[in-house]
């Protein structure tokens, strides 16, 4: 018992070092394309985690993530935009004087984005979290659309449909995106394994029983929602900084579907699943680009390969995964050291008889 514990601690330490070294390496030696994709992976992980907290662990079927992201993204965009560039960007309607003079550096802006998103989650959560199931889903989706519409219409604050460009590039550095992602990952894991996390899971399993166990449903649902909103806001802030530009169309409600897809693919209620799925989805989309490029075989161009084909393949792959791994890659389990060692232990014990078998069959 103690031995495995010790082993796990050592393994975790080694992993931490490896991850740091990898980040260092990637950040310094890999090309901008790969770094960018990795950054996206990290940001998607953050937002996937935030959504998994709400949907996977607390069992609230919420589709509002795009809205929280938008709030975080715009907060970072508005407040980190250099003062001297504001009149250029807000060329159609000048920025509201109340905020025109306020400039924040990246970290405070990022945190503020999270806080405002969390506050928005509180405001919307208070009425809406009393709803159940699909009704909650459509109400939260509606909320994210309302946010987007506000962003379109509050021109003096958000620059309306023009969006905000030339946002200083802070997140295109892997330390930022991965650093924040790791912190949020750890926080989520700690939260989930705390008494509050158990309460969230209890609500997911059976809310009536949870309430009968003295858990204030409403308070805990709001908590989960607010924490999720905060994380998503921070993720949105990083996203804005990475892309350097935000506009309302970016945060269309279909954006949320991407994260729903990630958490279901990884496993609703699995932190490690979310991380894995974020990487698979983000990198998969890039890898599949090959299918968009014309393929010539022996002088003949196969007309199947043209732009759009990768997306068709992607949707098909997605369907296949959903159909054959309906609980997601990880289900509700986590990738723990014990599991990994057990897995390899099994492999080994399987391998031994197999090698003898191999001789007879081949």
């Amino acid at each position: 018992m103690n031995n495995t514990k010790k082993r796990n601690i050592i393994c975790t330490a080694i992993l931490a070092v490896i991850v740091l070294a990898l980040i260092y390496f990637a950040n310094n030696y890999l090309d901008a394309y790969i770094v960018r994709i990795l950054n996206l992976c990290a940001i998607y992980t953050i937002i996937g985690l935030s959504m998994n907290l709400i949907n996977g662990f607390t069992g609230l079927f919420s589709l509002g993530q795009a809205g929280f992201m938008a709030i975080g993204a715009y907060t970072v965009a508005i407040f980190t935009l250099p003062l001297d560039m504001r009149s250029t960007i807000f060329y159609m309607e000048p920025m509201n004087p109340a905020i025109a003079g306020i400039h924040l550096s990246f970290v405070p802006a990022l945190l503020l984005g999270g806080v405002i998103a969390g506050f928005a989650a509180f405001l919307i959560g208070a009425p809406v979290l009393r709803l159940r199931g699909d009704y909650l889903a459509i109400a939260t989706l509606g909320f994210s659309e309302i946010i987007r519409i506000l962003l379109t219409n509050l021109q003096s604050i958000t620059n309306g449909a023009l969006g905000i460009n030339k946002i200083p590039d802070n997140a295109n550095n892997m330390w930022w995106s991965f650093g924040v992602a790791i912190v949020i990952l750890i926080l989520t894991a700690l939260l989930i394994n705390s008494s509050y996390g158990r309460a969230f899971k209890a609500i997911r399993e059976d809310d009536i029983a949870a309430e009968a166990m003295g858990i204030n449903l409403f308070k805990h649902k709001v908590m989960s929602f607010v924490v999720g909103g905060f994380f998503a806001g921070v993720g949105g802030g990083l996203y804005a900084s990475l892309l350097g530009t935000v506009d309302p169309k970016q945060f269309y409600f279909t954006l949320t579907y991407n994260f729903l897809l990630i958490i279901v693919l990884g496993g609703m209620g699995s932190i490690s699943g979310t991380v894995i799925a974020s990487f698979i989805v983000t990198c998969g989309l890039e890898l599949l680009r090959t299918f968009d490029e014309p393929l010539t075989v022996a002088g003949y161009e196969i007309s199947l390969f043209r732009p759009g084909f990768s997306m068709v393949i992607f949707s098909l792959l997605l369907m296949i995964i959903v159909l054959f791994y309906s609980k997601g890659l990880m289900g509700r389990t986590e990738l723990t050291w014990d599991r990994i060692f057990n897995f390899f232990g099994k492999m080994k014990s399987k391998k031994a008889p197999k090698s003898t078998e191999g001789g007879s069959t081949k």
Partner: protein
Amino acid sequence: MTPDNKSINETIDKNIVLRTENMTMQFGGVVAVDNLHLTIREHQIVALIGPNGAGKTTAFNMITGVYTPSSGKIFLHGEDITGMSPDKITRKGVARTFQNIRLFKDLSVFDNIIIAKHFSMHSNIFSATLRLPGAVRAEKKMREESEELLERMGLADVKDAVASSLPYGQQRHLEIARALATKPELLLLDEPAAGMNPQETEDLTASIKQIQQDFNLTVFLIEHHMDLVMEISDRIYVLDFGQTIGKGTPAEIQNNPRVVEAYLGVDDDAEN
């Protein structure tokens, strides 16, 4: 209805744990519970029996806050708890089990128990997440208490099993254990022996008695197994169509013609 002298006396009576006054529940046209007056004293085991659909579970649901009575009042130690939310009532010392077992199915037995202790933890979400000393201490205490309870309820060796994988009988036990984990004063059991064979029922009867004594509880239970009810109850209430058709000691109830007619039935098939 004006409260008569007796009920005024009862209000002052410290021994009374739970009292309902004219508790009524209507679903559309159906009056599921009609003007129910209950008086449950400390350390008593009180049973609520009656034909199916008599309104027993509904009465439980009102007492525990799942439903708000259409009219009438509920007092816990003289405090009006009518319409309070279920979690608040639980925190006031009322725990329950459900007619159709409602465990946290996919969670471990241990988690099922420790969740019931969550409300007593006073650390906020930040200190719990960040593992600040206060929260760590609280967590440790919760764990110890949960282990102890599991031991006491004979569930210690399945503590890591997923709740839904337990055999039915153990699930019933777990549900009772989970209710006990909230450290209740008043325990409400809705058909705890449902789905048990006579032998198991007998074991359960003994175990309820034991628990009542060990934990110093007041127990209010619904049951159709008459051997259990008659053996352990101090008092019995009988409902039919929402109305109270009898109350009293087991002996009184067994000889109450209305109850026999509506519920117990005459045993015409005496010994084969």
